[in-house]
C-alpha cells in the first residue's frame, strides 16, 4: 500500500482510457502519455491496460506501507527513494516505510507511478480511469488528496528490479530539440480556411497557454480565419482533434475532452503523437507537421514496435534472472 503524504493537486488514477461509453456521453479519459503508462506497466510485467497514478504537479511525496516493486516513467522528476536518486523510466523496490520524493519535472510534464498488477480501484464502465465531470472512476472520480492510500492489485511480486528503458523521446525524437513537434492530419473544415491561415498553422510556433489541462490545450498564435463563417453541428470528437473557436485560437482536445464538439475542425494530431503533447509543459511552444494518412499509420506502427522492444527487454532480463 502506498500513501500520498504531501498535499498535491491534479494527480489522478488513469489507465489507457474508457472505451465504448461515448454513446452515453462518457469521454475517454486515460493517461495523457499512454506510451509512458504502457512502458511502466510492461516493466512490472503488468498488462499495458493496468492503471497507474498520473502525476503532474511537483514536488510530492509518497510513503510505502509495504515492500513492493514500482516503476516510474514519463517526465524525469529527479525522484529519490529515501534520498537515493532513481533514474527515470526505472523499476525499483521500496521497503515498508520508505519515502519516494518527486521533484520538479524536467524533460516533460507528467510522470506515472505504476505498481505490480496496477492500482487497485474499482473498474467502472470498463476502465479505472478517473472521469472528473461524471465523478466516477479512479478514486471516487476525483483528484487525489493528501492521505489517500492505494494498494497494488498484485501483492506478492518477485520480478526484476533496477532495470529501465530509454525514454521514447530519445529513441523516437521528432523535430527540433526543446520544441514539441507533433504530426497532424488535416480535418474536415481545413479547406474552409484562408490560405494564409493554413500556411501560418504549419509555419508558426504555437504557445501552449496556461488555460491548458487534461481537457484540452488552448494555443496562442496567429489567428486562423475561415473564408466564411462556419456553422458546424454537434458531432463526435476524439482526443487530438484541433478545434478552432471564433477567436481563431486553436484548442487541441485532450484525454478528458467532451466526447462531442461543435467548433470547426482544422486538423487532428495523430494518435501516435498524443503522448508528445501529454508531456508538453504549459508555456512552451509547439509545432505542427503535416502528414498523410499512410504516414500516420506508419507512426502508429512505430510506437507499437517501440513497446514491443520494451516487452522483449523485460523478457530478456527475466530470463537472465532465471538462469543466474
Amino acid at each position, binding site marked *: 500500500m502506498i500513501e500520498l503524504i504531501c498535499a498535491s493537486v491534479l494527480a489522478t488514477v488513469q489507465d489507457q482510457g474508457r*472505451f*465504448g*461509453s*461515448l*454513446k*452515453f*456521453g*462518457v*469521454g475517454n479519459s486515460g493517461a495523457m502519455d499512454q506510451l509512458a503508462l504502457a512502458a511502466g506497466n510492461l516493466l512490472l510485467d503488468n498488462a499495458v491496460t493496468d492503471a497507474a497514478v498520473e502525476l503532474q504537479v511537483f514536488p510530492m511525496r509518497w510513503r510505502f506501507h509495504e515492500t513492493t516493486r514500482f516503476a516510474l516513467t514519463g517526465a524525469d522528476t529527479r525522484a529519490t527513494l529515501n534520498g537515493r536518486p532513481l533514474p527515470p523510466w526505472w523499476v525499483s523496490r521500496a521497503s515498508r516505510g520508505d519515502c519516494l520524493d518527486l521533484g520538479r519535472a524536467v524533460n516533460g510534464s507528467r510522470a506515472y507511478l505504476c505498481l505490480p498488477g496496477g492500482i487497485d480501484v474499482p473498474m*467502472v*464502465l470498463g476502465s479505472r480511469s478517473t*472521469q472528473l*465531470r*461524471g*465523478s*466516477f*472512476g479512479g478514486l471516487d472520480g476525483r483528484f487525489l488528496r493528501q492521505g489517500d492510500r492505494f494498494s497494488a492489485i498484485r501483492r506478492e511480486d518477485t520480478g526484476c528490479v533496477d532495470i529501465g528503458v530509454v525514454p521514447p523521446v530519445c529513441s523516437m525524437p521528432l523535430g527540433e530539440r526543446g520544441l514539441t513537434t507533433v504530426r497532424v*492530419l*488535416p*480535418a*474536415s473544415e*481545413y*479547406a474552409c480556411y484562408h490560405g494564409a491561415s*493554413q500556411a501560418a498553422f504549419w509555419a508558426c510556433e504555437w504557445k501552449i497557454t496556461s488555460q491548458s489541462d487534461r481537457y484540452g490545450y488552448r494555443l496562442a498564435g496567429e489567428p486562423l480565419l475561415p473564408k466564411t463563417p462556419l456553422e458546424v*453541428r*454537434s*458531432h*463526435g*470528437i*476524439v482526443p*487530438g*482533434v484541433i478545434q478552432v473557436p471564433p477567436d481563431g485560437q486553436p484548442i487541441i482536445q485532450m484525454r478528458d475532452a*467532451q*466526447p*462531442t464538439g461543435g467548433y470547426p*475542425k482544422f*486538423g*487532428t*494530431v*495523430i*494518435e*501516435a503523437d498524443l503522448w508528445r503533447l501529454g508531456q508538453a509543459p504549459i508555456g512552451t511552444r509547439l509545432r505542427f507537421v*503535416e502528414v*498523410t*494518412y*499512410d504516414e*500516420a*499509420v506508419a507512426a*502508429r506502427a512505430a510506437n507499437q514496435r517501440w513497446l514491443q522492444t520494451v516487452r522483449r527487454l523485460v523478457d530478456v532480463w527475466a530470463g537472465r534472472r532465471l538462469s543466474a
Partner: protein
Amino acid sequence: MNAVQDMTRHLPPAIDGGKLQITALGTSAMLLDVPGELGLLPQQKIWALARAVGCWPRIAEAVPGMNNLMLILSEPPSSHAEWLNLAEALRRAWEESEPLSLDGRVVDLPVIYGGEGGPHIADVMAHTGYGLEDIVAIHSAPLYPVYALGSHPGYCYLGGMDPRIATPRRKSPILDLPAGSVSIGGVQTGVSASAGPSGWNTIGRTEMTFFDHRRPSPALLQPGDLIRFHVQGIES
C-alpha cells in the same frame, strides 16, 4: 458520380458520397456527416446506419451526433486505399439505410421555470420579445426527440425546439452551471446532466438524475426517446 478526393497534402482524407460526407478524425475515428438542414428524418437514417455498421468488425463504437455519425475504429485501415474502401462500404450502407423509428419512451421532466434556477430567462425575453409566460408556454409545448447523447455523461441533444425562442449562446460561458439546468443555445435546448461549464442560457431547473454509472444502462435516456417539459412552476 462520387468525387473522391486524392490523399495529397493539404487535403484531408475524405470521400464525398453523394450526400454523405466522410472524413478522417486522425487514424482512430471517422466522421460521417449529412449536410443540409438539421432534421429528424436524416437523424432516423443515422440511427439506422449506427445500428447497421456498429457490429462491423472494424468498428469499435458508432456514436450518433446531430445528423452525423462518428465511428471509432478498432484498428485503423492499413493504408489510404484501405481507408477509401471502408469509406465506400460505409457510403453504400448509408444508401441502403432506411429511417429507423426507435419508438422511444416519453419521459416527463418537471421544470420550475425562471427564478433562481433560470437566471437567464430575462435574456431570452429580451432577445425574443416574448414575456415570461409565453416563453414557458412555447418551450413546454413540444415533445422533444433525443437525437443523440454527448457533451458529458447522460447529456442529451434534443431536436424540435420552436425557433421563435432561439437565443444566441452567451458571450462568456457560465463556469459552474448546476445539474438539471434547462437551457437554450441557439436553436437548441437541453438539460445539463451534471454540474459544469456552459455557454447556454439557463431558463429553468429540473431534479431528474440523468446518469448513474451503477445502473445496467447508465444513461436515463437514449436516442429516440422523447422529452416533455412539464411546467411545475414559474418564478419571476
